[in-house]
């Protein structure tokens, strides 16, 4: 199996949130993107810090959703991906 790039993993996390009607708890998200807790937390914190995702509380549970920047990333992902791949000869 080909190793996922950082960009693929970030896309995977963001896409998974979107695919779950834009709200999901942290633990199921980690399970769905198939990362170790340590690596998942690194990516998760980075996405929170960069405001691609945000956390909110509902009925005593913490959920995560995509921000406008997260949606923007999803829209531009395929272009960014091909832009990066273009450099590889």
């Amino acid at each position, binding site marked *: 199996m080909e190793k996922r790039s950082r960009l693929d993993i970030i896309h995977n996390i963001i896409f998974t949130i979107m695919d779950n009607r834009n709200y999901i708890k942290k633990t199921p998200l980690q399970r769905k993107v198939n990362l170790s807790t340590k690596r998942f937390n690194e990516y998760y914190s980075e996405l929170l810090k960069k405001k691609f995702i945000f956390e909110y509380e509902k009925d005593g549970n913490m959920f995560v959703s995509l921000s406008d920047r997260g949606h923007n990333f999803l829209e531009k992902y395929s272009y960014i991906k091909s832009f990066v*791949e*273009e450099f590889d*000869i």
Partner: protein
Amino acid sequence: MDIRILFGMLTHPSSPIFMLINTALLTIIVLSNFIIYLKTREVYDLSKEKSLKYFRNTFLFLTLVFFTNLLQVFLPNFLYIQHNIMNTLSLFRIYFSGVSLVYLLFTFLWKKLKKFNIGDELLPHLIGIILVLLFVIVNSRPLITLLQFLLFLLFFIFSIISYKRSKNKRMSNYYLFFVILFVSLFVVNILDMFSFSNSIIFPIVYIICIIIYLKLVINLIDKISL
């Protein structure tokens, strides 16, 4: 006004209108190169792709090349600048252009660099310094231009290979356009060097390059900045 006088005012290197156009166009290039550098920061932070690092460094050093060029055009109009200061600026310009061209090649060769363990931090600066030393020792601008042309040629070959291998041909056009732009600006440099700058070719080629360039920059920023 006689059309010949107007033409002379527009194209003569020492005319104020020519200086103003040149300064404005160089300012546009400096700002747009720097904007590319800034706007690709976030994509690089997310992806940590080496190719993007080199791509950004290319534009950072291109900003410095054109900024040095801008200083050379702009400063003598307002300040008394000693000849040796202008010469020093020329050396910096050669250095920055050497570094930017090597980074440009690195954007395509980054996997090979990893394979052969070539120092990606040191090599561009080393080549920049070698170009400066060559200029100081030989004092031949055509030689430097020839070396820069060889680097451009390599970049052009890599772009063609990249284009042929790419699945997304529309995307690849960017790189061919970039090549066209670089070559055009390079042609302008050659025209300038051989004192053909009082010809109508100089401002026309320059302005067309800037228009194409700006269109590319706006498209690029719109599509990859987050």
